[in-house]
């Protein structure tokens, strides 16, 4: 079937097209060039006056894995506020802070998103992450596997194993867990918490292993580079949420020595200690460092006011913050000599000084980082806010007067501590398209996604231009996934199943010999039962794997 999208204004930063009126042809799920000679269009959509972008990609969203399901189980009262009825097309479920899997897929698609990436896949919990994501309809998905607090790596560092051995282990783990990237959370800190350490600075030693977070970051970032994995090491740094942690973050940027590194939810790591409350914005210094260091990318982890739940691998910092739990209940777990997790419900309040300033710090960061190819739009769903608040966040970025109106309503002391009112910048549609489409696809290393030129998969979102950007982005006219129309006027009209994006870096098979001995001696399952097979993703007839090239591969 040949589909023609006629006359829309196309924003396709991947091809350098910025609001140009263009026709798009779709055949067999992909964008194609205008056929030559005589041809018949089977279905035409008149998009005159409409805005066309590729489907949006959330490069950091907690949509699959054990901590999310703990968050769901913890909060029945939150689900009861947002029941989702079954329809002829859609399954029932729940929404709001931590939606059910089916509702996650529907609501992302209804905002024009066609892919989401789970950033914290514990190797030992990777099956669960993939099984949950297998029940998210419409979206493509993928995961970054968590390393850095696992005892195997720390033992390797203590034993001074060479970089090649570490690369093999990283590649093995990526393949075993079916990952497209590697994340490190509070490097070594989750492990240190098990030894009763309650904080771990960048150069502080793990009391058992003598290894520092800085060393962990260096070997993992090096491994990613040497393996040719496109997505840079994805880093949730030390000291999340601690006033003064911007120094740690600046030090982390300097310390990586030019290696590619992605600093995630940087808002939570951009705090100073100025002012009467000893809590201030470090956004300007952080943005300056990001602007200067081209090897660094960031996503923001914007907070927005209201009830949510924080679900993190960082059990050390989550435990330190449990007193802020609202409602007052929380969970931490130590997990399998592999990692950990912590789940703490949060209610961010605009009249709370700290929350109000966190809100401003996130926005300052967005507005002070120059290059939209190196900054990404996230709320660290659900940690800063549920993903359903993205259209509101986009309006805050694109509409200065709206932003200043909201700013005028937050805690007055926080207003005094932010430069936000003096920042004139408004994001353009093209910059939004870079952050949420082309840039995200490039950062993750997705081939044939995030663009609208011929050869790309036809993940396409069509909006009606509206000066109220929140209204515009929360209700697309059409969303196509792999060329199939899935959303009309902001409602799902058809569902399908997306693919799972992975990379498969090579490793020396001899690494499995050491690992097998380690599993038999110290862990609780056989190595052969730990590795996830391709079947497990595909055997239900819905899932599929898409393997992306490594850097240096011939495409």
């Amino acid at each position, binding site marked *: 079937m040949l589909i023609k999208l006629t006359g829309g204004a196309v924003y396709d930063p991947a091809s350098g097209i910025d609001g140009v009126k263009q026709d798009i042809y779709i055949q067999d799920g992909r964008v194609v060039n205008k056929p030559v000679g005589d041809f018949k269009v089977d279905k035409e959509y008149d998009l005159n006056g409409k805005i066309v972008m590729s489907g949006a990609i959330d490069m950091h969203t907690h949509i699959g894995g054990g901590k999310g399901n703990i968050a769901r189980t*913890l909060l029945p009262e939150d689900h009861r506020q947002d029941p989702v009825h079954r329809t002829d097309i859609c399954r029932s479920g*729940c929404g709001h802070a931590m939606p059910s899997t089916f509702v996650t897929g529907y609501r992302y698609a209804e905002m024009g998103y066609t892919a989401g990436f789970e950033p914290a896949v514990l190797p030992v919990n990777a099956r669960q992450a993939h099984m949950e994501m297998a*029940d998210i309809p419409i979206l493509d998905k993928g995961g970054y596997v968590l390393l850095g607090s696992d005892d195997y790596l720390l033992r390797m560092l203590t034993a001074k194993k060479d970089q090649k051995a570490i690369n093999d282990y990283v590649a093995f783990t990526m393949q075993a867990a079916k990952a497209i990237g590697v994340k490190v959370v509070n490097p070594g800190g989750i492990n240190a918490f098990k030894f009763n350490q309650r904080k771990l600075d960048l150069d502080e030693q793990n009391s058992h292993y003598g290894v520092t977070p800085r060393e962990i970051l260096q070997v993992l970032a090096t491994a990613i580079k040497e393996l040719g994995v496109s997505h840079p090491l994805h880093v949730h740094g030390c000291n999340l949420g601690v006033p003064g942690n911007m120094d740690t973050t600046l030090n982390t940027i300097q310390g990586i020595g030019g290696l590619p590194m992605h600093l995630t939810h940087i808002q939570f790591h951009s705090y100073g200690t100025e002012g009467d409350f000893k809590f201030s914005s470090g956004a300007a210094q952080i943005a300056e460092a990001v602007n200067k260091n081209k090897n660094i990318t960031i996503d923001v982890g914007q907070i927005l006011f209201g009830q949510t739940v924080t679900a993190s691998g960082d059990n050390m910092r989550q435990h330190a913050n449990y007193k802020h739990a609202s409602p007052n209940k929380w*969970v931490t777990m130590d997990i399998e000599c592999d990692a950990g997790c912590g789940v703490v419900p949060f209610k961010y309040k605009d009249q709370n000084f700290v929350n109000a300033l966190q809100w401003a710090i996130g926005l300052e960061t967005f507005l002070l980082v120059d290059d939209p190819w190196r900054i990404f739009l996230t709320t660290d769903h659900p940690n800063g806010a549920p993903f359903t608040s993205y259209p509101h966040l986009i309006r805050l970025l694109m509409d200065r007067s709206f932003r200043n109106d909201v700013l005028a309503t937050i805690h007055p002391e926080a207003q005094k501590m932010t430069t936000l009112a003096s920042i004139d910048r408004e994001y353009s549609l093209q910059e939004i398209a870079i952050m949420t489409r082309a840039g995200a696809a490039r950062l993750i290393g997705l081939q044939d996604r995030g663009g609208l030129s011929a050869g790309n998969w036809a993940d396409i979102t069509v909006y009606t231009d509206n000066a109220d950007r929140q209204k515009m982005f929360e209700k697309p006219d059409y969303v196509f996934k792999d060329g199939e129309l899935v959303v009309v006027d902001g409602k799902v009209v058809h569902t399908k199943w997306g693919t799972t994006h992975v990379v498969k870096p090579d490793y020396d098979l001899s690494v499995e010999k050491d690992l097998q001995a380690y599993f038999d001696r110290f862990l609780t*399952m056989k190595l052969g039962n730990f590795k996830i097979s391709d079947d497990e993703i595909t055997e239900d007839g819905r899932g599929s794997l898409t393997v992306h090239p490594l850097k240096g591969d011939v495409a």
Partner: protein
Amino acid sequence: MAEITEVPSPFCGIGTDDLTIQVNGVSLKVVENGCAVNSPAFEQAITDTSARVDGKEVSLEAAVAKAAALLKDTNQPVIGGCATDVNGMRALLALADRSGAVVDNMNFTGARNNFLALQDSGWMNTTLAEVKNRCDLLLVVGVDLESFSPRFFERYLWNEESMFLDDTGKREIIYLGKAPSGNASTSPGGRKASVFECTNGDLPDVIAVLRALVKGNPIRVDSVGGIAVADLQAIADKLKAASYSVVTWAAGALAYSQAELTVQTLSEMIKDINNLDTRSSGLPLGGKEGDQTANQVCGWTTGYPARTRFSSGFPEYDPYLNDTNFLLNNGEADALVWVQAFNAKAVPPVTDLPTIVVGRSGMTFAKEPDVFIPVGTPGIDHAGHAYRMDNVVAIRLKKLRESGLPSTFDVLHAIEQAL
């Protein structure tokens, strides 16, 4: 005859995956690393191979059609049992969503003791590999651990080496409440567990006093539930002195009213210990016959654990009112679907309502159900996934033989499609 190694078990809850099983046609024999729970569960013979309607053998298609016909005009069917693998639960929840059913896992009344505590105040828990490598003090509350999991001590306490303990034999084991039925908790060097027995009825008081002692609150009695307060003080002191104590309980074994408060007191005590400059974690036992699996899959599909109704067109969780037996006894259900792919002895409650059983081959019924469809067992007749007790690790179940039995998924999906 074939021999399959590294076989994972969905039966014992602790994720043993080192079984060696001999396969001879459709008969299985556990030849290595069996136990009193796993060996009989694997070795049970296939007796029923065809479906029945009203006691008469019919084709699978006919049984599915009959099941769909029975469900077609119901207002509130109950799907009980819910003992199957991840894919089976997926199909079960799709069927419940379509038919407006109540979903209720058969072990939920026990598990409720954990869920109510979790949903009210939360907890700090750990998993089996952390126990194996870190635990220097294990406090076992209200359960005979070795009859629950015969190989628990062998695999996770008396392992030859651990990463962080010089000598695993020096771990201290304390029982509070129930006494152990055997010697599994005795260390290889002969060190016996300390045992402080009390009745289930006294356990809430005993645990409350223990928590008070951990917090340093004064206690004005000398004994509680027959246990000297001095002994409880000694346990409290050991919990505070340990580097990584683990407190374990089985929600289902706390079989008394409001036992969720005992779980909550234990969990809050663990939090208290973590604020006294050391580490401690909880380890709830469970994971048998798909109970964690049911709650996990229902959790991501609906937001709620597996005692949830769909009769209003969206999921509604009620840990009391959605109980299968409560609904049957109060006349609030109009059909029963019983799903139990693991245990042929776990048969449905007897009811006059139309009854459909999707069960392990070999079930015998006091009253023949309207429809009985024998299904394969996950991890024996087909591959699949099941969660073990610590709720983090989903084990990959293997297919061991070619029995021709359909999976739970196949059957429930077919019924859903026929509706």
